[in-house]
């Protein structure tokens, strides 16, 4: 064999190419989860993933075109013309017409959304997130797209059970005289406050111990608009303006 790169590495270790592997989509399961976690906590790693996406993106140029059926545009146009469903927790469970109803689909969709969202400039990585250096069996992260409908792009929420940290991308839902309050609605069907979102920029919350078990796949995250400082009653008083379901990454 003439090329030494096919021989086993001398020290038995492969180079760390996780950023390229994530950009290519080679990883699955726990490895993918670990890579997504690194995107969140290592800005240099996130940049490396973006760099690889751009590098491989040049290959899209040689990807053969195939014309889609002429009816597809009308379908897209109809979909964007539909008024957004009332973003109440109950209505979030609208079935997806084009994807089979199966566990894993929502999770995979959320992960793809995450992959898109983390490339966005308005999602700075908080330096304060503490992550164990070598978790023996990393607990699986959860993500949600909290959809504010007509009010703007979905807020991405990423929960890391290892740190009980919940990170949310920037949202500008509340006016100056309001606070946007985040709620978790779990198996008991009742909203429990997780805290207030920052008026500008991304928010990072540490989930209180009592609420950690509620952060689970299928639970709903919702944002309501409350008086400054949040609802004094422990239940949302103001309108729920955005919601989304949690999925495992």
């Amino acid at each position: 064999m003439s090329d030494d790169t096919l021989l086993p590495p001398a020290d038995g270790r492969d180079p760390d190419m996780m950023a390229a592997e994530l950009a290519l989509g080679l990883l699955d399961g726990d490895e993918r989860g670990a890579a997504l976690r690194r995107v969140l906590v290592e800005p240099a790693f996130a940049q490396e993933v973006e760099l690889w996406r751009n590098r491989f993106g040049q290959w899209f140029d040689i990807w053969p075109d195939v014309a889609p059926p002429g009816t597809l545009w009308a379908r897209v146009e109809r979909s964007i013309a539909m008024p957004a469903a009332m973003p109440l927790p109950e209505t979030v469970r609208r079935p997806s017409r084009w994807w089979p109803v199966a566990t894993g689909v929502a999770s995979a969709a959320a992960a793809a959304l995450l992959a898109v969202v983390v490339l966005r400039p308005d999602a700075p990585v908080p330096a304060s997130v503490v992550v164990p250096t070598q978790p023996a069996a990393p607990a699986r992260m959860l993500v949600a797209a909290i959809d504010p409908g007509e009010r703007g792009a979905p807020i991405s929420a990423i929960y890391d059970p290892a740190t009980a940290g919940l990170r949310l991308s920037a949202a500008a839902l509340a006016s100056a005289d309001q606070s946007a309050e985040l709620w978790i609605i779990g198996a008991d069907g009742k909203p429990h406050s997780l805290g207030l979102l920052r008026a500008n920029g991304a928010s990072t919350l540490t989930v209180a111990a009592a609420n950690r078990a509620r952060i689970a796949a299928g639970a709903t995250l919702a944002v309501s608009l409350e008086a400054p400082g949040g609802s004094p009653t422990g239940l949302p008083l103001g309108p729920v303006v955005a919601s989304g379901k949690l999925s495992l990454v």
Partner: protein
Amino acid sequence: MSDSSSAIAARARLVEALIRTGDEDRVAFRELYQLTSAKLFGITLRICGDRQAAEDVLHDVYLTIWKRAGAYEPSRASPITWLATIARNRAIDWRRAQATRRASPIEDAPAIADHAPLASEALVADEEVQLLQGCIDALEQRQRGAIRTAFFDGVTYAELAEQQNVPLGTMKSWVRRGLQKLKECLER
């Protein structure tokens, strides 16, 4: 107009359509669809390997683009890379949600050329394509094949190892060292 200047003009037009789409301009969104739907359908069709699924995923991709176009920043990625990455990720998603893996190559989708065509409709810069291509060509054949298959078919390490009938660890080693070599070449 030369190939490169028409490619630059095409890219500028696409950037403009994407930015205007971010402002919820439906006319611009339609133009964006006309400019990109064949590229994006080529992507979803190849990765999904199923025409109906590819159409459904493409529909979803354009809804995502409609919602997220406002987040696009021209300085960070070419418009086609940004759009095509969404399509590729969504198609991979769909594919991995299927219980059974596709065993055979897709019959419906056209084959990928070994080398970039001249930029008759190029939406990315020529020189960059040639740099990537040159560095890929410098890799050992099995590494090159694995990396290309990962990109164009959206497969995981496990699927690559199965296809090539090698242990998973061996496949990972090949690809990782190939990627390292590729990185060194691209950064040279």
